[in-house]
C-alpha cells in the first residue's frame, strides 16, 4: 500500500468527512478533541455527566501526562491507551456525543465495527506509547471540569491539536484492518506449523 502524504482531517468532524476514508490510509488530525480514559471515560459515557456540547469533536482515548495547576497546564506526554479495555464506553460516547472520529491504540472488536457502521464513525490508531510526538502537536489543553482537574487527571481534557498522524483501522462501513490482519497472521502461523513438522 503506497503511503505518500497523509490526508488532512480537521474538526468539526462530520460523517461526510470520514465516509470516504479507506482502511490503512494515513490521516493527519487537527482541531478539537476530548481526551479521556478509564473511570473518567465511563463517567462521561453515563447519562448523568454534562459536557459543554460541541458538535464535531473527536475522541482521543488517552490520559495526557499533564503538569501545572490552576488552569495553567502543560502536556508532557500524551500517548493513547489500549482501547479494547474500554470498548463499551467508547461506543456509548459515539452515540451520546455523535462522535465521528475516535483515536486510540490497538484493535477493537465486532461491537465497535457495528457502531462505526451505524453511526458513520472511523477508528484511528496512533502509535502506542509515542507520547511525546502527540504532546508536541497539542496547542492548548483545558480540563472539562477545571475545579477538579488535579483529582481527575484521567480527564476529560479538551485538546486543540495541530497535527496528529494516525491510520484508519476501522472505516465508516465497519470494516476492520485488525480483523483482516488476525485472519492473515493465523493463516501464516498455520503454514509455519505445517512446514515445521
Amino acid at each position, binding site marked *: 500500500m503506497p503511503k505518500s502524504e497523509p490526508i488532512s482531517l480537521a474538526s468539526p468532524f462530520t460523517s461526510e468527512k470520514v465516509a470516504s476514508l479507506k482502511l490503512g490510509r494515513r490521516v493527519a488530525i487537527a482541531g478539537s478533541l476530548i481526551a479521556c480514559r478509564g473511570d473518567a471515560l465511563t463517567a462521561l459515557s453515563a447519562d448523568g455527566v454534562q459536557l459543554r456540547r460541541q458538535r464535531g469533536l473527536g475522541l482521543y482515548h488517552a490520559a*495526557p501526562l499533564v503538569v501545572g495547576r490552576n488552569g495553567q497546564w502543560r502536556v*508532557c506526554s500524551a500517548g493513547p491507551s*489500549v482501547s*479494547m479495555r474500554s470498548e463499551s464506553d467508547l461506543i456509548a460516547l459515539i452515540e451520546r456525543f455523535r462522535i465521528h472520529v475516535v483515536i486510540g491504540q490497538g484493535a477493537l472488536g465486532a461491537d465497535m465495527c457495528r457502531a462505526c457502521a451505524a453511526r458513520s464513525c472511523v477508528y484511528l490508531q496512533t502509535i502506542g506509547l*509515542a*507520547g511525546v*510526538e502527540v504532546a508536541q502537536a497539542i496547542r492548548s489543553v483545558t480540563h472539562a471540569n477545571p475545579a477538579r482537574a488535579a483529582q481527575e487527571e484521567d480527564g476529560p481534557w479538551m485538546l486543540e491539536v495541530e497535527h496528529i498522524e494516525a491510520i484508519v483501522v476501522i472505516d465508516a462501513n465497519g470494516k476492520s484492518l485488525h480483523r483482516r490482519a488476525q485472519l492473515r497472521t493465523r493463516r501464516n*502461523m498455520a503454514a509455519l506449523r505445517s512446514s515445521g513438522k
Partner: protein
Amino acid sequence: MRTTYWEKNLYELIRRTSISLPTDVENALKRARRLEAAGSSAQWAIDSMLSNAQQARAEERPLCSDTGTLIFYCRVPAGIDTNALSASIRAAVARATRDGYLRQNTVDAISGAKYRTNVAHASPVILFQHGARKTVDVRLVMKSASSENEGRQYSLPNNELGAGADLEGFRECILDAVLQSQTNGGGPAILGVCIGGDRATGYAHSKIQFLHKLGYTTRVKALGRLENAVLRDSRKLDIGPMGLGGKSALLDVHIGSLSRLPSSVFVSVSYMCWAFRRRGAVFGPGGGLKHWLY
C-alpha cells in the same frame, strides 16, 4: 549511609530511564526499519517511534505516558543497609513523580484510590540480591501496563496449541504469545521468556531477561537456537509494528531457564513494548556514582 547523596543519584537514574530510550533499543528499531518496505505503514510507525524517542531525549520529557511498574534490580555487597537504600529509592520515586518524570500511576488494589507519588505497599518494586563486588549495581526497568497485560504463561503439554514439553513445544508457545499480542501490544516487542520454574519464579525470571542488551544471545546453545528460530519465524507471520503488517513483530527474544518439577513445565512469556525504558548505574557503597550502564 548518606541518604541525600543516594537520593540525588537515584533520582537521576529514574529521570534518565524515563526520558531516554537506551542506545541498544534505538539501534534495534533502526535495524527493524530496514526490514520493512519503503513507504509502508510499518516504516511510518517505526519512524514515529524513533522521532518520539529523539524528541523525548532532546526535550527531557517522559518517552511514554504509560509510566508502568518501576522495577529496581539491586545487587549489593554484604553489609549494606538495604532498608536505607529502599527508603532512598522511594524518596527518589516520589520526587520524580512530583516533577512530572513519572505519572501518578499507582492505585489501591481494592478501592482504586490513587497514591499521589507512586510510593505505596509494593510500589516501586525493589529486589535485592547479594553480589561479590563492593559496589552497588542498580538497574531500573519501567514496564508499562499495556506491555504487562500481554504477558502469558503456558503449562505444557498444551493440547490446544499441540505443544509438547520439548523445544518444539516451547517455540509453539512463544509464537502463540507473539500472535496473541499482535494488536494490543506496542510492537515491535522484546520478549523475556523463562522455561521451567514455577508460576511465580517463571514470570520473575522472564522479566530478568530484560536486563540483557538487545542483540545478546544466550550461551546455552539449545536456547540460543530457540531464540533465533523464534525471531526468524516471527518475521514470517506478517504482524509488523503495532500489528500493521510487516516483518518486525519482535526486536529481540531473550530466553532463560530454571530447574522445574518433573511433572510441571511452564513457559512464561513477558512482553515489553518498543518504548523499553531500562537504565542502570553502578554506585560506590556511599552512593557516589561510578558509571552508567547501558
